[in-house]
């Protein structure tokens, strides 16, 4: 359960802990980690949705069957590869396995992945707005009649079964407009960032969205969805973060890299190496500056300090995202034994 965390300023904040897994391994390994995470006190679990990996819904179904309390969700699916109608059906079906423990995380998707799949991304903001409207309408049993969006059009759609409880929708966001949209429409927001300054800026944008819509921030679960790596040795934590950071750097637009004072030439070398499939070159080119900008890594004490900074920004859920650590089991153990107790 989320608990109140006494910040250094002395004010009480609600904080819960989430964990993200990429289902790149056979299902039973991911389920093992899920059971470990639930037992260790994590409140939420997120599974990424990527066509090269195992199915997010098969993985989540298995996790729900072997856990009792933890809330689970897609982290995140996207409306370009998966129709929002299919997402609504999948999420509603999943909810029948464990009513009240399922949430829907949806974002505009990773451009590189969508390009690989030959999917043309147009109007991502409109697509997200419409997708959330469509999923909400179906989950609430209202259905859609002659829905005319600028990206999606639906003549008639309604689930043939009833969803017995409300299912929160979390919007995955990074850019300013998407963060505002999350504040306007989401039951939660998954802020795709790891740096405390970026997260603080993002929370302000979410607040702008809530204000514009006349909503209260209290109604939104604000999650910092970080690239996280922990180890007793800072060096090992950094090294484990390098592959994830390499992919983030390669996919980041130049203005974002410049904002974090990442050398553009170095970033280009990483991208070129990744495109060629030369992973050792790409990963070894990741610098500390890059990791500081795009990951949260370090010893338990260092992670606690960085998480504290993030929570001060108004975050209500801290998500321990991939890679978690060089040895996932040991890294979860460290978070459970040394990090979570500091906040709960």
């Amino acid at each position, binding site marked *: 359960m989320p608990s109140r965390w006494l910040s250094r300023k002395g004010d009480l904040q609600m904080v819960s802990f989430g964990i993200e897994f990429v289902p790149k*391994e*056979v299902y*039973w*390994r991911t*389920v*093992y980690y899920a*059971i470990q995470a639930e*037992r260790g006190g994590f409140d939420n679990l997120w599974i990424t949705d990527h066509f090269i990996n195992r199915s997010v819904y098969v993985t989540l179904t298995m996790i729900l069957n*072997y*856990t009792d309390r933890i809330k689970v969700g897609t982290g995140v699916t996207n409306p370009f590869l998966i129709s929002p109608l299919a997402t609504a059906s999948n999420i509603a079906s999943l909810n029948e396995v464990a009513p009240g423990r399922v949430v829907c995380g949806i974002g505009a998707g990773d451009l590189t992945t969508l390009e690989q799949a030959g999917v043309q991304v147009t109007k991502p903001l409109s697509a997200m707005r419409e997708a959330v409207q469509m999923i909400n309408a179906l989950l609430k049993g209202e259905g859609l009649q002659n829905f005319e969006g600028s990206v999606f059009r639906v003549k008639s759609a309604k689930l043939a079964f009833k969803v017995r409880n409300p299912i929160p929708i979390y919007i995955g966001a990074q850019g300013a407009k998407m963060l505002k949209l999350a504040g306007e429409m989401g039951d939660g927001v998954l802020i795709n960032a790891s740096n405390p300054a970026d997260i603080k800026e993002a929370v302000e944008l979410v607040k702008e969205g809530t204000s514009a819509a006349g909503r209260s921030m209290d109604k939104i679960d604000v999650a910092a969805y970080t690239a996280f790596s922990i180890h007793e040795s800072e060096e090992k934590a950094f090294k484990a973060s390098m592959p994830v950071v390499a992919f983030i750097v390669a996919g980041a637009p130049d203005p974002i890299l410049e904002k974090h004072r990442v050398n553009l030439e170095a970033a280009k070398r990483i991208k070129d190496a990744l495109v060629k499939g030369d992973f050792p070159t790409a990963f070894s080119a990741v610098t500390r500056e890059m990791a500081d900008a795009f990951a949260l890594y370090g010893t338990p004490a260092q992670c606690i300090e960085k998480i504290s900074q993030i929570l001060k920004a108004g975050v209500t859920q801290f998500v321990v995202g991939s890679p978690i650590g060089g*040895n*996932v*089991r040991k890294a979860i153990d460290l978070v459970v034994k040394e990090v979570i107790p500091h906040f709960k």
Partner: protein
Amino acid sequence: MNSLNLFGVVAKIPRSSRSSLSTQLIDILLNAKGGDKLPSGLAKNFLYLWQKNRLEEDEGMKVLLEATLFLDAEATLKQLKDSNLIEVADAIQMAQQKR
């Protein structure tokens, strides 16, 4: 190795060794190559016993050994020997030779 033999082997593992041994066997299981080849029933038994926190009991140790021997017999036997469970390792090797 059949189930009966493994239950006999498990009985030789002292209770005091089970906590650290089960953790080490789990690491073998989680990191071995070919995880997708693990028989479905064995994977589900492993998860069920992990969910019930029973991996250190006789049945849990048996399933762990069965799974690690399936995925990486060499690492499993080495781990048993490193854990000073020579008699257990020998019993498994003898049973494997008889098969």
